[in-house]
């Protein structure tokens, strides 16, 4: 990343963010480690001076920046000239022609954060921003409450940055996510409870320990990292916005930040304004936002999660009401799918596009399919589905549904016999499938 950082330093200017502001009541605070408003407990957001950004950022300055999220540094809440750059971001935007044909769509793209660096989920974006800010604020220990991906990312990027790290996860997480955290040698607390209970515990720890919790006291900075999923799609589509996006909903933060990212690019003259529709995906076993959407409520009733899509199993989603508002005002939809449909979604994306996503991605694809079949996606719309995590981390979810290898002797006739048998089985499968 040396080269990237050198180029970034050359572009350095004064930071464009200056305050934190309550999203509910507008109260303002110094840009310190603080996540809720002292007046009304609303979430705090970073406030920028967009005139500074307009005067310094153009398509050309962005294109000349590093091949990572830090090409959008002026839109991110950090002040240092050497942000933690582990190559996060600028993941592929793949035109998904075979999947589109299967779903009856014409212009479908996959934003593939299953190959985001360094830990194969979109969380590397938010953690790169949060830990850069943590370092600026003087924290030496960083922490998080996580459904797995955030734990992987926090532990890895803390290791890279030389920060001490203690992360909290629900004790029943997938093995890949546990091992994928332990390898970086943080202190890992597996809490006997669901994610919402882990979160509550961490809020109490954050109150007493003075650590930088990426998704608690650093949340205003952390969550801004998700805006880069919006910026990159706009840039990769040739500096224009899509017509429709479909993204998974856990806390609802990612969804709201993609929306914010698109709007900031419009406000700063980087893309033409466009009415983008925002649709959200949940697992039926944890669908508080989808239920509120279907019942036309403006509040979220918490639920107790029970789904294989553990990375998005947040029963009490902090940004749920904002995600709900965005889906409604953009004429989008929020839909949920069963665990069986999630597995089918994972297989469908793998078989048509060669992308192995985790259960959250399976949820997104299954909802995309459901919306397409219900005529809720115009086939001519440029649609982007956000794939936010990697399937190798949740192998348990699909291991019983992907078949077995054909084990053979190292002889030509053994291969021929097995190949013939496989073709016959494929044909029988095909004949049984109603078209």
């Amino acid at each position, binding site marked *: 990343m040396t080269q990237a950082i050198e180029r970034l330093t050359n572009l350095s200017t004064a930071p464009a963010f200056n305050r934190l502001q309550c999203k*509910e009541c507008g109260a303002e605070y110094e840009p310190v480690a603080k*996540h*809720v*408003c*002292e*007046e*009304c*407990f*609303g*979430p705090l957001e970073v406030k920028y001076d967009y005139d500074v950004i307009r005067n310094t950022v153009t398509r050309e300055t962005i294109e000349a920046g590093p091949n990572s999220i830090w090409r959008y540094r002026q839109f991110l809440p950090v002040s240092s000239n050497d942000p933690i750059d582990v190559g996060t971001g600028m993941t592929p935007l793949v035109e998904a022609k075979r999947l589109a044909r299967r779903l009856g769509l014409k212009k479908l793209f996959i934003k593939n954060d299953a190959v985001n660096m360094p830990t194969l989920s979109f*969380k590397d974006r938010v953690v790169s921003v949060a830990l850069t800010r943590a370092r600026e604020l003087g924290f030496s220990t960083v922490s998080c*409450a*996580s*459904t797995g*991906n*955030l734990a992987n990312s926090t532990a890895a990027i803390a290791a890279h940055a030389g920060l001490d790290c203690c992360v909290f996860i629900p004790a029943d997480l997938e093995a890949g996510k546990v091992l994928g955290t332990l390898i970086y040698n943080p202190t890992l607390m597996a809490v006997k*409870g669901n*994610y*919402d*209970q882990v*979160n*509550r515990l*961490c*809020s*109490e720890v954050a*109150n*007493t320990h003075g650590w930088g919790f990426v*998704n*608690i006291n650093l*949340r205003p900075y*952390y*969550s801004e990292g998700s805006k880069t999923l919006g910026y990159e799609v706009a840039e990769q589509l040739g500096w224009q916005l899509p017509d429709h996006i479909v993204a998974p909903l*856990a*806390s609802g*933060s990612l969804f709201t930040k993609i929306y914010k990212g698109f709007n900031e690019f419009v406000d700063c003259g980087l893309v033409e304004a466009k009415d983008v529709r925002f649709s959200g995906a949940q697992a039926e076993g944890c669908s508080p936002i989808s239920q509120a959407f279907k019942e036309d409520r403006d*509040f979220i*009733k*918490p639920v*107790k999660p029970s789904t294989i899509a553990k*990375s*998005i199993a*947040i029963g*009490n*989603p*902090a*940004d749920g*009401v904002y995600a709900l508002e965005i889906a409604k005002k953009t004429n989008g939809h929020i839909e949920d799918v069963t665990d069986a449909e999630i597995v089918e979604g994972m297989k469908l994306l793998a078989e048509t596009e060669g992308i192995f996503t985790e259960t959250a991605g399976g949820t997104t694809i299954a909802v995309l399919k459901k919306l397409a079949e219900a005529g809720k996606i115009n086939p001519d719309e440029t649609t982007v589905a956000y794939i936010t995590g990697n399937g190798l981390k949740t192998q348990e979810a699909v291991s019983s549904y992907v078949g077995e290898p054909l084990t053979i002797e190292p002889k030509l006739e053994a291969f021929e016999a097995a190949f013939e048998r496989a073709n016959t089985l494929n044909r029988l499968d095909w004949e049984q499938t109603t078209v």
Partner: protein
Amino acid sequence: MSVKVLIPTPLQKFTNEQATIECDASSIAQLIEALDSSCPGIKDRLCDDSGKPRRFLNFYVNSEDIRFLDNTETVLSDGDEVSIVPAVAGG
């Protein structure tokens, strides 16, 4: 009923910087009133104009969200622990 209440950082200026306080109450609604008499002004922060707990604030009784119990009518017993926790983003 004597219960232990965990106070989040933004509210500790009402409790002389105490992170936990003991309180006598037999329901969450009563607890909010009792807190307000020992820590004047705290109710305005806990509740919105209609008197309901603010939407970004969660109340837990022995780790269970009161929305899975009887909301502000949730009954408290001697020795219960009540946590007041602002909403947290995740993943």
